[in-house]
């Protein structure tokens, strides 16, 4: 049962799929401006505006927000929207990697991949129903607590909301046939039909996400309306607003990482409760694959996040500064703790997993150094930009920032830290891949030397760029390090994987991998990954929505409710925590129900013989 090689293909396929979607999004971007479709809509827009079909965004007072049963409307909408998003992220992501794993199973004719894919989709079926239920709840909550906002948005997005509802039927149909037809559509042409269904399922699911993203990004960067909020009638302009594609890309990648982490938690739970050796081996293998999926998507995620933040800044300098340098700045220190947790737990799981191979001993001596670097990079990311200081502390420090450590609080240092973390996680992966192999090519020493040189040069370049831009340039140029640093990281990782694939061509195996030979504590690393991901998504969802501050639709429709205030981070964290606990309880229910379907009771003497 050799995971890494086919799994590498999985990663590659994931990347290709992700890039494919990005290209589709970019093509749509260009397409929208030049196509006949857009021209037709622009014409309709002019006519609609001329005919005065749409009114301005309503100016609300506190009386326009119904008080229902003494419930705080904002918290209800906040929690329900967050729960809906968590489940939606999960059920959109699972079919993506289920499809890829099914393809791998078909190519390798290894049935275990097919079985694993089926088990993944089985877990997501109940979650799918919960997503729909929560989506309905969210719509009701919006209509009840924010009727004018809902009316305004549904006026602009009436068409896309209608198509969304229709697509939901298509999604359900594709998912149910895909799942319930799994064992029926096996072998030969039928398998192709099944795979096609999987593709349709993913295409519809992704389109649903893109539509919903348009509604929320319109609230952040409204388009297709004038300064008073009068809709011009061009639905495409409103959908294709400034932040639509950055959010699309970020969510697509993050969903995969999140879906991987949740099924990882499922596998961990099954591993811990497994009774037989074979069952433990199966769920260990499943947990490894889930973790691999989560990490593959986690590695590009900081870059997608950076792109999103840069686009927010480009859209509105004010919004960008509020995000990174204003009242939300401390949130990124909490985020640092979460990201540190994610990287450390993912790496820890990999290190524990090396125990599956007897050949891993050759690499265990290096792990402590990787751990030290990861913790060091985490601490740099964790360093706040500006501390809240007393006057005495200010005097002792000689200003608001420490002369040497101060720059650790700004972007060049943060970028350096995250790139170093990613590179060292890649090294952990490399050791894991190598653990069970012995290279047979005659130039293995030279190859290893090149690997060392590649990583050394890459890390040196990243650190140099970080120090140069952190200490020796002024504010305006401080972010300039990010692109070359990212490119360095990508080149190092791609170069290393390519080189290793040549070094280990025709390699011998140390022995067969002992799946199931992993300490129980490693499973808790998988739980930690899932919980940290969930909580982090909640926190970042808060900031994405929170940077609108007292606006429903930025600069167009003001929030006049008593809850228009921006809460403190502690308040937000408490809401996110309550929502996360509810979500985790529901996820445990989903895991349990997935297990119940395979339980059988034989009630002796109950039925007529």
């Amino acid at each position, binding site marked *: 049962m050799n995971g890494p090689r086919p799994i590498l293909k999985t990663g590659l396929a994931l990347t290709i799929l992700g890039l494919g979607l990005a290209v589709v999004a970019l093509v749509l971007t260009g397409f929208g401006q030049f196509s006949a479709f857009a021209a037709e809509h622009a014409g309709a827009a002019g006519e609609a505006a001329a005919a005065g079909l749409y009114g301005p965004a309503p*100016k609300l*007072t*506190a*009386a326009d927000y119904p008080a229902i049963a003494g419930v705080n409307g904002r918290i209800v909408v906040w929690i329900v929207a967050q729960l809906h998003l968590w489940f939606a992220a999960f059920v959109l992501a699972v079919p993506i990697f289920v499809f890829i794993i099914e393809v791998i199973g078909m190519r390798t004719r290894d049935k275990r991949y097919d079985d694993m894919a089926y088990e993944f989709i089985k877990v997501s079926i109940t979650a799918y129903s919960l997503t729909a239920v929560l989506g309905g709840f969210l719509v009701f909550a919006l209509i009840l607590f924010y009727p004018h906002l809902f009316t305004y948005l549904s006026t602009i997005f009436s068409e896309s909301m209608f198509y969304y509802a229709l697509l939901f039927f298509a999604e359900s149909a594709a998912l149910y046939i895909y799942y319930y037809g799994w064992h029926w559509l096996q072998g030969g042409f039928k398998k192709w039909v099944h795979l096609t269904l999987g593709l349709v399922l993913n295409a519809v699911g992704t389109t649903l996400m893109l539509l919903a993203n348009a509604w929320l990004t319109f609230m952040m960067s409204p388009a297709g309306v004038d*300064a008073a909020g009068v809709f011009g009638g061009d639905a495409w302009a409103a959908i294709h607003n400034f932040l639509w594609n950055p959010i699309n890309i970020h969510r697509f990648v993050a969903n995969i990482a999140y879906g991987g982490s949740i099924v990882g938690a499922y596998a961990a*739970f099954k591993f*811990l*409760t497994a009774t037989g050796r074979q069952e433990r081996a199966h769920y260990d293998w499943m947990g490894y694959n889930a973790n691999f999926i989560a990490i593959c998507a986690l590695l590009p995620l900081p870059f997608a996040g950076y792109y999103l933040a840069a686009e927010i800044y*480009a859209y*509105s*300098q*004010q919004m960008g*500064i*509020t995000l990174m*340098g*204003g*009242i939300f700045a*401390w949130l990124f*220190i*909490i985020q640092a*703790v*979460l990201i540190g947790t994610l990287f450390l737990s993912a790496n820890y799981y990999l290190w524990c997993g090396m125990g599956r191979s007897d050949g891993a001993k050759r690499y265990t001596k290096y792990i402590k150094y990787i751990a030290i670097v990861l913790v060091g990079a985490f601490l740099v990311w964790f360093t*706040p930009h500006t501390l*809240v200081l007393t006057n005495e502390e200010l005097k002792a420090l000689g200003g608001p920032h420490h002369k040497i450590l101060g720059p650790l609080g700004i972007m060049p240092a943060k970028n350096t830290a995250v790139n170093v973390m990613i590179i060292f996680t890649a090294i952990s992966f490399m050791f894991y891949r190598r653990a069970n192999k012995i290279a047979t090519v005659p130039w293995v020493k030279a190859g290893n030397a090149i690997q060392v040189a590649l990583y050394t040069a890459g890390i040196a370049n990243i650190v140099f760029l970080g120090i140069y831009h952190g200490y020796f340039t*002024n*504010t*305006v140029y401080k972010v300039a390090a990010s692109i070359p640093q990212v490119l360095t990281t990508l080149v190092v990782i791609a170069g290393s994987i390519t080189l290793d694939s040549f070094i280990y061509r025709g390699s011998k195996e140390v022995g067969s991998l002992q799946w199931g030979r992993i300490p129980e504590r490693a499973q*808790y690393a998988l*739980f*930690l990954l899932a*919980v*940290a991901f969930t*909580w982090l998504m909640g926190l970042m969802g808060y900031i994405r929505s929170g940077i609108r*501050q*007292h*606006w429903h639709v*930025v*600069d*167009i429709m*003001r*929030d006049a409710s*008593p809850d*228009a*205030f*921006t*809460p*403190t*981070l*502690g308040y*937000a*964290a*408490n809401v*996110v*925590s309550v929502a*996360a*606990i509810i979500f*985790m309880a529901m996820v*445990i229910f989903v895991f349990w129900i997935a297990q119940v379907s395979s339980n059988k009771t034989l009630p002796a003497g109950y039925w007529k013989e």
Partner: protein
Amino acid sequence: MRQFLTVVVFTLLTIGFFAGYSNFGIPQIEPAPPPKEEKLDLGSMTMDGFIALGERLFNGKGTCTLCHNALGRAPELATVGEVAAGRLKDPRYEGEAGTVEEYLTESLIDPSAFVVIGFGKKGTNDTESPMPNVASGGIGMSVAEVAAVVAYLQDSSGAEVTVEIPQDIGAQEDDGEEDESEPREAIGDPKELMALFTCDACHMIGGEGGEVGPDLTQIGASRDRDYLRRAILDPNADIAEGFEEDMMPEDMGEAMYVAELEILLDYLAGLK
């Protein structure tokens, strides 16, 4: 079952740690409440008061200090009064201003008329400013407020303050967005009335509301209807101890229907 409970406890502890860190590990900064429309009594305002108003707007509603600060995100304004005259002669200047005052006003509502080198939007070769028009959308300053900020900028940069306090627009602005041609329907519910006139922004009732004005939770126990009527129609006649004058709008009597006033008085007198 033991494994299940261990997982549950582990999950709760993890979430508890994240929540605890967010509450106690970092400073809890209370973000400023949403900005409120400030009623400008321009008729009785001195130039010092007008400049002080400009400073408040500069640091508050205008959100100017987000970028115009020592971090170098936008040009420093400490010397803008001196350099403005030079900018008007700069070949890159594309505006229509003839004086420093006009230039400053223009730079607030059409920031791309002149972009200081190095501060333009990326890729525009310093022809487009990232600064928004302060009179529109999110900031939404009135003509008088823009004038106040210009007065403050002139004063703080050592230039002569040439701005005159606008006298004829205050009343118009106070009317806000009320459409006088269509009278609104009278409201019969005192709580809806209080919401319409945003009384809770300054007055607390039952633990909810602002603290700018007196707490009204049990106002009926200590004040009679006549006192309350006077407090609404002529708020500066009696100022409760510990509170400042001129904080409450004086036009309540004009904005409220007579029937509404009586409904509100019934309600307030009943708060005991």
